[in-house]
């Protein structure tokens, strides 16, 4: 049985529809990314998942309990099974770092000695051993988020929700926070749902991705599948634009749809994990007598898989056998256009 089973979830505020008929499942130990531009319904979905918002319709089964059917009193208990990491940390400045991490345990009524023990353990887990006595205001953004994560997992929740957890951080810190989350996922087997507008974060980190658009779920699959093929859906194209290789402006301006005599042919090629470690380019050069330039792109890690997404410039027109070979080897082959050569 899935850890989380959302079915037919709809949420309306007056005449405004925030979510319409959303269904998906999350298994134990999975890392799932929820992505969408602002106003897509991400926050509402998150608020429903941690039982802060009651949906208009549908069911949310977490560990077998339906969050939409519980009374306020039972919800208080159900919320303790969900940990939430916030974009702006939301740490209490009236408490020390250690006391912030202890808060959910105090709320759950743990005895004091056990709280102290657990807090030590958590401080070590997030790499803040010597910072327990400090105030949150004395920490850097990344350290604050580590405290936020320690606090969220203190009471051993079965689900960890991250709400734009890295959006307020610089790229370097983002990477270290994502590493910490991946670590927690591996060592504790904790299920993580990561809500973000940054495709890069999802690409590096999530096993599976849910795409929300105007309150509807328009994609639910592995990141590698989504990156390989957006089926020409402009909503997906827009989200994926940042993670894909793009042509430099000067080349884009010269692009023509018809072949240029003696010019170059530009193609976008996407290869799966098996091709990432083969000498693909030299294969093309030797077998098809082509001179090839890598214009943009390369091999990326993508939800644990390897994906090669690149734009190549071919010196000679693409012949029938070459096209057939590419068709067989690559997931996507797309002729972007032709440009004159400088030779």
């Amino acid at each position, binding site marked *: 049985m899935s850890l989380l089973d959302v079915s037919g979830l709809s949420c309306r505020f007056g005449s405004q529809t925030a979510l319409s008929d959303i269904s998906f499942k999350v298994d134990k130990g999975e890392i799932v990314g929820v992505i969408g531009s602002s106003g897509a319904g991400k926050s509402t979905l998150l608020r429903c998942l*941690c039982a*802060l918002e009651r949906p208009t319709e549908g069911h949310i089964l977490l560990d077998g309990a339906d969050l939409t059917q519980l009374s306020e009193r039972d919800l*208080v*208990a*159900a*919320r*303790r099974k*969900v940990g*939430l990491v*916030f974009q*702006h940390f*939301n740490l*209490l*400045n*009236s*408490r020390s770092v250690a006391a912030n991490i202890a*808060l*959910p345990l*105090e*709320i*759950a009524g743990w005895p004091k000695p056990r709280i102290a023990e657990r807090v030590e353990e958590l401080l070590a887990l997030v790499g803040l051993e010597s910072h327990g006595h400090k*105030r949150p205001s004395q920490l850097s953004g990344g350290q604050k988020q580590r405290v936020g994560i320690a*606090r969220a997992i203190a*009471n051993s929740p079965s689900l960890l929700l991250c709400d734009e957890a890295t959006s307020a951080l610089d790229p370097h810190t983002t990477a270290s926070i994502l590493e910490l989350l991946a670590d927690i996922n591996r060592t504790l087997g904790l299920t993580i749902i990561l809500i973000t507008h940054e495709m890069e974060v999802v690409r590096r980190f999530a096993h599976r991705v849910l795409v929300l658009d105007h309150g509807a779920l328009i994609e639910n699959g592995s990141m590698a599948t989504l990156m390989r093929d957006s089926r020409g859906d402009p909503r997906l194209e827009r989200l994926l634009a940042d993670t894909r290789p793009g042509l430099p402006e000067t080349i884009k301006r010269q692009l023509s749809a018809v072949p240029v005599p003696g010019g170059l042919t530009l193609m976008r090629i996407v290869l799966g994990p098996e091709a990432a470690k083969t000498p693909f380019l030299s294969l093309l050069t030797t077998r098809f007598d082509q001179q090839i330039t890598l214009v943009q792109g390369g091999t990326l890690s993508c939800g644990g898989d390897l994906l090669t997404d690149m734009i190549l410039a071919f010196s000679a027109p693409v012949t029938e056998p070459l096209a057939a070979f590419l068709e067989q080897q690559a997931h996507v082959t797309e002729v972007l256009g032709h440009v004159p050569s400088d030779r």
Partner: protein
Amino acid sequence: MYRLIARLIAESTLQTVEMVAASSLVAVLFGLPLAVLMIATRRTDLYDLPWLGRPIGWVIDAVRAIPFIILLVLLIPVTRFIAGTSLGTLAAIVPLSIAAIPYYARIAEISLQEIEPGLIEAVRVMGGTRWMVIRYVLIPEALPGLLSGLTVTAITLVGASAMAGAIGAGGLGDLAIRYGYQRFNTTIMFAVVAVLILLVGVIQGAGTLAVRAVRR
């Protein structure tokens, strides 16, 4: 002569301190819960019962609208009922407190209002009850503001307690009016003013220190 003045001033200072301290204490004891009640009933992420908190606000505004000197007179029957008399330092504490409660309640409300909604959300998500939100978030996070609000209230009460001299409350204000104004004794007048300045300075200094201590 100077020993008499010194004794009079010492006595009056003590009475003023007594009045200010007692009514400040009452202001916090009643004003803070009222402020919490107003905030907690208004917020949709807490009790969401605006019709409960709003009338409290009306009563608070009504009391604050009455000039203190008139409140003093209006409250004489109440003062008699509570203190047994309407004269003296002890009796003056009643109208001072009743004026201070709504004053402090509004100031405390401002500090409580400044709390980030995200902090409340964080505790709610942890499975905290609404009462825990008040206990772990609202009060401790607003504490610096609540303390500086108390400082402002206490200093306002120093001024108000002088007016209470009008009903024979004693204290520094009373002394300044009786000896300084009615008997043209400027020495006492200036001495009282100096003590008042000192007193306000001490209260403000203590308040600032307390705020710094909790803010860290």
